[in-house]
Structures are given as C-alpha cells and as structure tokens.
C-alpha cells in the first residue's frame, strides 16, 4: 500500500556566504488519508523547512533541495513542472501557517482572499465563489459568516483569522492539509478549539493532516503517528500511543520530561542541557550525543541508523531499546 504523501531522504540546505548549511538532512516520513502525522522537534530542527519543501515553497535561492523524494499520490513533487505544482498548492494540498496575525493580507477582505484561491483553481463565477466562501467560513465556525466575509483581517481576532486561514486552505477540498504550528500563536482555549476544528474537518473530509508542532500536548491530542526530529534528522518514529507509553530516543525522553507536570513538585523545570547544534557544525556521530546523558565514544563517532524496536516503532539510537528510568532522574 502506498501512502498519500511519502517523503524519503529529503535534504534541504541553505546557502550562506558560499557554504551550504543543511537544515534538513535525510528526513523520511509518510502520511495516509484520514490520518494525522505529528512532526515534533524544537525550533530550528528543520520541521518547518520540511513542510515548506512539500509545498514547494522553500525560497530558492538561498534554499537548495539537495536530494530525496517527495511523492504525493504517486507524483514526485520535486520533479513536477511549476504549473502543475501551483495547481496542487491550494488545490489538493492546503497549508496553514503559524502566525495568523500576519498570514493574511491586510488590504483585502477575508472573502476576497478566499475567492482568490477558488479562482486560482477554476471557480470563476463570482456569485458561486462568494457562496462557497460563506459556506467555508461557516464550516470553520466563524460566527455570522455572511457578514464577516466582507471584514478585513484586522477586524478579526487571532483565532478568527486562523479560522479564515483554515477556510482558505480547505477551499478546494484538499487531500492533504499541512499545518505548520497552527496553534502556537493562539491562547490555550482557542488552541483547543482550532485543533478540534481540524479533527472534525478531517472526520468529515477524510483528508490527511501533517501537523508540525513543538508542543507534545498538541501531538497527544490530535495525532495518530509521530515523527520526532532533531537537527535535521528523524530520530524516532512511532504511533502516538507507543511514543508516549514507551519513548525510546533519549531526546524524546528529554522532551517528555521537559513538559511540566501538575503532579510533580519541581523547584526547577526539567530541561535538556545544551542547545541544538547550529547547522554549520559537522557532528560525525549521533547529533544528540553532545547533549545526551548516555553518550559513549561510539555515539560520538558513528551515526546510529533507524532501527525498528517494536512493530511500527523506529528509533535512531545505539542504546535502544532502553528503559525510561535510566535517563530520567
């Protein structure tokens, strides 16, 4: 069975003063219709670049796709002519972004911005497009959509703008929705509403969702499968249930430990020591080794391959399978 979207061994670099820095260094993932895949990692690990690469929106230059394949419904997106790629963007693949405050153009009304994507994908009759736009705004739960359609973005709240963004992304019934930190800029109650909305819409349309986030709580609530990224690499891949009950990579374990718990009385919040290595630093072995409490000479010398520990649960660590208790104090 082939998945709707398969990314294999994707490598994306950015040119900077003559040298190329790898932001994404061999990422593989796949997502199926009706499923939600979470891509988790801290800022700068390459998760947003991966999602932009799928959309063909990595700015080139300075960005360079250096290798790998992105297959969507049997088509290799990296080899697709620009015109066909444009037809997919906003058509069969929709995308929503992190910043609802700046993602909409301030000088056009919401309706105009939705119409634009409808028109770009073949709906030219203005009255039909308007009716569809109202229907979409209703679908994403914007109150009194027939009135709000003529509002400018600055007249809406952050959550409402994100709903409009979702309406735009869903305008042409996409098979795949890419959501790049869709709730990061929103406050918690709105966050939950937006996530619920995405789930409801998925149940209705059967679309696949690729959810990029750094928030493990969001992943637990919404995703079927998770990919954990670190420094441009996938370090762990599992179903959400398996990842949460039995995290294998020391980085994942550290991430979980870093989530503040209401039950634990902590003087300080747990953190992972050190920071993400900058992309121009070449690390010969495991990239997490400099920060890993378990790291040995082997870790520092050789990059661990992805291994399947339990069915469907893969991890790139020499120590796996490991017991969680070893690493958490």
């Amino acid at each position, binding site marked *: 069975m082939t998945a709707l979207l398969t990314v294999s061994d994707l490598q994306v670099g950015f040119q900077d003063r003559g040298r190329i820095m790898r932001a994404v260094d061999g990422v593989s993932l796949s997502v199926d219709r009706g499923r939600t895949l979470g891509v988790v990692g801290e800022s700068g690990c390459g998760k947003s670049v991966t999602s932009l690469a799928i*959309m063909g*929106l990595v700015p080139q230059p300075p960005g360079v796709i250096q290798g790998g394949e992105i297959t969507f419904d049997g088509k290799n997106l990296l080899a697709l002519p620009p015109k066909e790629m*444009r*037809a*997919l*963007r*906003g*058509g069969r693949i*929709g*995308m929503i*972004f992190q*910043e609802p405050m*700046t*993602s*909409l*153009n*301030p*000088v056009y*009304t919401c309706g105009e911005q939705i119409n*634009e*994507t409808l028109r*770009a*994908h073949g709906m030219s009759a203005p009255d039909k497009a308007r009716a569809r736009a109202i229907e979409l705004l209703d679908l994403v739960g914007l109150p009194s959509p027939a009135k709000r359609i003529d509002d*400018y973005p*600055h*007249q809406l709240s952050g959550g409402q703008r994100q709903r409009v*963004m979702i309406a*735009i*992304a869903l305008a042409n019934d996409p098979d795949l929705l890419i959501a790049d930190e869709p709730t990061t800029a929103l406050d918690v109650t709105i966050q939950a509403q937006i996530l619920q909305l995405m789930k409801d819409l998925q149940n209705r349309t059967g679309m696949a969702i690729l959810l990029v986030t750094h928030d493990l709580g969001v992943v637990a609530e919404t995703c079927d499968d998770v990919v954990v990224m670190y420094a441009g690499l996938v370090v762990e891949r599992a179903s959400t249930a398996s990842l949460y009950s039995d995290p294998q990579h020391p980085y994942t374990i550290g991430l979980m430990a870093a989530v503040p718990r209401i039950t634990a009385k902590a003087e300080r919040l747990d953190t992972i020591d050190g920071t993400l290595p900058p992309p121009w630093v070449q690390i010969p072995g495991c990239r997490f080794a400099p920060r890993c409490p378990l790291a040995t000479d082997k870790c520092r010398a050789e990059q661990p391959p992805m291994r399947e520990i339990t069915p469907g649960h893969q991890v790139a660590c020499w120590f796996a399978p490991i017991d969680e208790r070893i690493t958490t104090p």
Partner: protein
Amino acid sequence: MLDTLAKRLLQSIPVLIGVLVLGFLLVQLSPGDPARVFAGAMAPPEVVEQIREKMGLDRSLWTQFWGYVERVMHGDLGRSFISNKTVTSELLAAIVPTMELMIACLIWSIPLGIGMGTLAAVWRGSLVDRAVMAFSVAGVSLPIFFICLLLIQWFGVKWQLFPFIGRGGPLWTVEGLRHIALPALSLGLIFIGPVARMTRSSVLEVLRLDHVRTARSKGLNESQVILRHGLRNALIPVVTLVGLQAGYLLGGAVVTETVFSYPGIGRLSVGAILSADYPLAQGCILVLALAFIIINMIVDILYAILDPRVQKR
C-alpha cells in the same frame, strides 16, 4: 471616508493661517523697496513717498497685515505693481499651464517609476536592477536646470524635435503637447528616481512578509503574487513619497518653467519676487501653499483607499 476628509479640511485651516503670516512676512523681509520700483529709478524722493503712502506701505506692519488678511478673505489679492492687472487674474492665467505641466509630468513618470522599481525588486541583483538603480541615482543627483539644458541642447537644438520656448496652447492640442514635452520630460526625470527606489525597497520588504507566502500557498502564479500581494501593499509608502515629491515638483517647476519660458506659476513667482511685486509674490506663495495642502489631502484619501486599516482608526 467623509470623516477623514472633513478632519483634513479642518486641519488645513491653521496651515493656511501660517501661510498667510509667512507669505506676508517673507515679502516684507526681502530686500528691495517696492515704492522705489514702482516709481522708477529716476523718480524724485517726494514721488516715491507719495506712492508709498498711496500703497499703504508707510503704515505699521500690523495694519498692513490685517488689511491684507481682510482682502484675501474677500478674494481680493490686490493688483500687480508691474502689470496693474489683478493678482487673481494673473494667478488664474498661470495655474492652468502649471497644472498641465504637473499632469504631463506625473502621467508618465509615476507608472514608469513604479514599474521600474517593481522590476528591480523582482529581479534583485540582476542587470535590470542595477540599471534602474544607476538611472535613479543619476536622476536624483543631476540638478534639474542641467537636465533642462541637456534636453534643450539635444532635443531642441541638435535634433530639433521639440520646441523649447513657451506654451503652444492647451494640453489637448498638438502644439500644446509638443511644447510641453521637454518641460514634462525634465520634471519627470527627477521624479522617476525617488519613486523607483522607494517602490523597489518597499516591494522587497513586502515580498518577505508572511502573507505573500500564504498567497503562494494558495497556488497563485508569480505575477499575481507580485502584483496583487506585493506591489499592492508596497504602494502605501510609495504614495507618501509621491505626495512629498509632488511638493518638490512645484519647486522643480519653478526652475523648469523659467528655463523653458513656460508661463506657469513657477515663472510668475520668480518674476514677481525679482521685480519686488509684493501682491503678486504673496499670491503665488498662497497658491503654492494651497497646492501643497491639496496634494496632501489627495495623499490621505489614497491612503484610506489603499490601506483599509487607516479608515477604521
């Protein structure tokens, strides 16, 4: 929209009062004795005194100023010392040619400047970009009288393509167009540079914004992205600049009109000041200030049209 307009109109009242005071004082401060000018260099001192009395120039500054304001309020700007025609009629005769010159200048230089700036931004770092930048630096650095002289030298004298003295008639006639070509060209050349530069940097800035990425993610093609989401938003600062530059344009028109002997407000004011024709000079200053206020008002209206966030504030 009407609110904005009304507010702007009210705000322009203090400006107008200031202009009245300044125009009055500036002329008082300038060297030269109008009574002497009017009487002629050979006239005996008693005659000069008589004229001074008749014109009211011997009275106190206050009295003169209030008299002036009162008359202006009644639409009476006095009579020119030199031609003895009413200042109003002189001004009216000069406004139309100047407005024609403005239109003839802006109508080609604004679209061209915006177009050049946009292309330079889209093809940043290319040959086009560098050519546009070089052109605009030249346009900004060359003094306008020099551009005028170059145009006269080449288009006027050498190739004899266009006449370069005076006005040929209304803008819609062939002769009118032929006569206005060189003045409009020279004025436009200094105008394109700043507009192109501003458009370039503004478009570059806007194209980096998130909503442009959104536009791409919707599957729009590049020209739609650049025109509808890049240029459209980038126009807001460009309009401000055009408004400011239009003010300089009036100053440039003074030089251009003088060089081309074009009978507009610019040349009229230079003549009035040189010949110490107080009432006419004051009238010219008043008209130029009014022009500034009107231009600014147009800019504000365009602002509200271009940026919906302005209206709601």
